[in-house]
């Protein structure tokens, strides 16, 4: 019998090409490279922004200038040259599309290659897609249906124009511009993103979804997402990414802010598949993202992420459990292959009484990659009866990759209960043997085991997203996952 050994699997993984490497040829409008006050004024003027926002950007810029780039993460990369980045690129058409038929056919092509053509989405899944192509949102569907319920779901720049009070009230309250180096940079130069507001007591009837896509070469993308769920409301928000093949490193420094008011629930799911660089570790996206949510009384925020892309990933979706009885959840699968590096995890800050958090993190390292979990669980003095459960497992596929765990556990309250456990191992030979002995090929068996290993997390994803996530896992680990 032709045996499929682990070495062969490793070889296959090494040769695995990036599947979504194509560039859409759409004329883009860019501002000159570099970063200074002028550029920021230019971006602000191009987007026709009110003065308070320009002031906020300039203030963030002066804060950013005083900061130094952090280097504590377990990743190695060449620091980006911030003066060599184009901070604004918009598809050239300035007029808004009247209907779906008016959209540039080439762009439609891109979307169908990604498997998210709007027609199909509209017809089959009932998902409203806010498609962000290089910073300016191109098409927004289901808007009218959402409007009936009072739900606002639009691009960030539209929100600035149409709902300035809401944006001003909530922006920067979860991730202030002083928070960290990349958050400050984002606050200064962010180009677009999504804004979502769910009014009191409304349960959003469909899953809201945004596809981000880096397109023009050398364009850093600085997205800003703000989701506000008012009292008693519910929303499930999906975010997915694919990026075309490039040789130079692209910087992606997004900020995501979630606010769950009293009794509200936000479910935020991400499938991330930025270009990870080729098998020699050349090129690839730097993904330095700040994601954070605040939970008021009895609110719940749940982060689910499937990370398969990016050359360097550095992100910690966090929950501040401020209100009594609030709940934070974090489910993550991070796959690294070739020379990818990931330092990811979460922070759960328990402030309120009876707050609960769950962390399930699954790391899979293959090739020469480095995969780290770094998490913080902090129980403050007044968080009586707080409860945390963390589990981080790592799976190693080759003998030249690395898997690391750095959990920080800080407890200041005697009634809190914190549990943390982590394991690191390779796929069990007895499990493989069991499957093969029942006639399943080794390749299929590995796929089965990896899928089972990630199941706890994949189960958390909305159905149609879970299918895509499984596809991405398969692409990232092709040869092992059928």
């Amino acid at each position, binding site marked *: 019998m032709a045996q499929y050994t682990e070495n062969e699997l490793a070889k296959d993984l090494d040769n695995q090409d990036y599947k979504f490497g194509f560039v859409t040829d759409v004329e883009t409008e860019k501002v000159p490279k570099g970063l200074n006050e002028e550029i920021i004024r230019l971006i602000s003027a191009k987007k026709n922004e009110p003065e308070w926002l320009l002031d906020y950007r300039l203030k963030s810029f002066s804060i950013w200038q005083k900061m130094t780039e952090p280097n*504590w993460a377990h990743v190695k990369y060449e620091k980006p040259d911030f003066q060599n980045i184009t901070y604004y690129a918009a598809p050239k058409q300035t007029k808004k599309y009247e209907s779906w038929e008016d959209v540039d056919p080439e762009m439609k092509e891109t979307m169908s290659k990604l498997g998210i053509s709007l027609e199909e989405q509209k017809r089959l899944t009932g998902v409203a897609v806010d498609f962000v192509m290089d910073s300016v949102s191109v098409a927004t569907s289901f808007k009218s249906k959402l409007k009936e319920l009072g739900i606002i779901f639009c691009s960030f720049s539209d929100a600035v124009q149409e709902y300035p009070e809401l944006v001003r009230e909530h922006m920067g309250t979860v991730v202030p511009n002083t928070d960290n180096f990349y958050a400050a940079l984002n606050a200064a130069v962010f180009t677009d993103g999504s804004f979502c507001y769910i009014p009191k007591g409304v349960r959003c009837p469909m899953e809201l979804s945004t596809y981000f896509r880096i397109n023009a070469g050398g364009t850093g993308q600085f997205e800003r997402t703000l989701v506000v769920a008012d009292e008693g409301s519910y929303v499930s928000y999906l975010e997915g990414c694919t990026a075309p093949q490039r040789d130079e490193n692209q910087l992606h420094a997004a900020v995501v802010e979630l606010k769950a008011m009293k009794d509200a629930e936000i479910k935020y799911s991400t499938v991330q598949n930025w270009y990870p660089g080729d098998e020699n570790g050349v090129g690839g996206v730097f993904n330095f993202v700040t994601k954070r949510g605040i939970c008021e009384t009895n609110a719940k925020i749940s982060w689910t992420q499937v990370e398969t892309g990016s050359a360097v990933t550095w992100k910690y979706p966090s929950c501040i459990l401020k209100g009594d009885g609030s709940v934070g959840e974090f489910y993550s699968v991070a796959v690294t292959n070739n020379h990818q590096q990931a330092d990811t995890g979460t922070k759960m800050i328990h402030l309120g009484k009876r707050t609960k958090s769950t962390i399930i993190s699954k790391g899979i390292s293959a090739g020469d990659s480095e995969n780290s979990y770094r998490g913080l669980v902090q*129980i403050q*003095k007044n968080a009586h009866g707080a409860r945390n459960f963390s589990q981080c497992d*790592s799976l*190693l*596929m*080759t*003998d*030249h*990759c*690395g*898997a*690391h*765990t*750095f*959990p*920080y*556990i*800080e*407890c*200041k*309250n*005697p*009634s*809190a*209960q*914190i*549990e*943390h*456990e*982590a*394991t*690191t*191992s*390779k796929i069990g030979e007895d499990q493989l043997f069991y499957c093969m002995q029942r006639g399943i090929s080794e390749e299929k068996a590995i796929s089965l085991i990896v899928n089972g290993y990630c199941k706890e997390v994949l189960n958390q994803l909305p159905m149609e997203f879970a299918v895509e996530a499984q596809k991405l896992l398969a692409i990232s680990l092709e040869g092992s996952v059928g």
Partner: protein
Amino acid sequence: MLTQSKFDILREKLSPSILPISNEAREKAEAILETADFPTRRNERWKYTSVNGINKLTFDESIDDFDSFNPISANAEKLIISNGFIKKDQKQIKGVKTSWDELPTKSADDAFDALNILYCTAAIEIEFDSKIHREIELIFINNDNSVLFPRIFVKCNKESKGTLILNFQGSEESSCFTNVSTYIDVEENSHLNVHKIQKNGIGTFDLQREYVNQAKNSSFSINTFSLSGRLTRNELNILVNGSNCETFMNGAYTLKGKSHCDNHTTVDHKVAHCFSKELYKGVIDDTATNVFNGKVFVRKDAQKINAFQSNANILLSETGSVNSKPELEIYADDVKCSHGSTTGQLDEEAVFYLRSRGLSEKAAKELLVKAFLGEVLEEVEHAEVRSYVENQIEKHFSA
């Protein structure tokens, strides 16, 4: 004008060592201290521990001759170090060297180790060299505000067996500054157990570092009991350099008052086919704080490593705090590594069960805490060490 570092301020209060330090070691230590300052929160390894309080201590150098001391082991050969200095007129112990023409040059890249060299109060070399099990106990007895800077070199020769007890006992009210560097070599096919009991005075700052080197087929275990003191920091660095090694680390701590205890352990698996197990447990009361940082490295090609790490804490008061950081850094795939950490309180149902059977609340809690720490004590093979620590835990709660 050059600003004075906190080390400079400290050094003005200490009197230089009278032991024969080699020039090489002295120069290296001076060079380290030249640029060093007390570690701050920004230093990841000292994120939760501040040593600034050391500079508030005042020292005196009266050498008291203690009449009584409490040995733990009846069978062990004993060496007494009183207020940091080796007690005069003691019986010579075979394999223990205390007088020097020149101190060994071994040193680490650490500011407190450099300080230890320059202000060393006693240097002790211990050699275990026979298949017949030997037991040696070092009794560090001190009172008032003394300074203890011992350097200890332990060698467990090929195919030898040994037990070393490091018994630190300070009088209850004392505020000493203890700074210990211990270098341990565990050679091929040898077997070494170390028991370290830190029963310090309530004002004492105790900084200890162990540097352990394990050669192939060796077995090493260290049990650390931090029972009292103002600040206790143990840095345990174990380098496993040979295959088929076993490493056991156990620790228990009982903290109350303003105590701060910090255990930093590192196990570095450089070669394949080794086993390590770590278990640290403790209870934290009053405004005490505990820090645990365990690190397991598995280097590339160090396959078939089984490494387990566990830390459990019980927080008894509203004002105490626990910081736990168990880390794994793994570069080989055919390994089984796990770690776990828990922080919680006593099970209310268990307390209720005991109370419904007539135990007072205090007695019930004491019993449960003893059972909780009992898991660590079970790992201790030495009966006398075990019963000594049990007694101390009992005293800790009755006080």
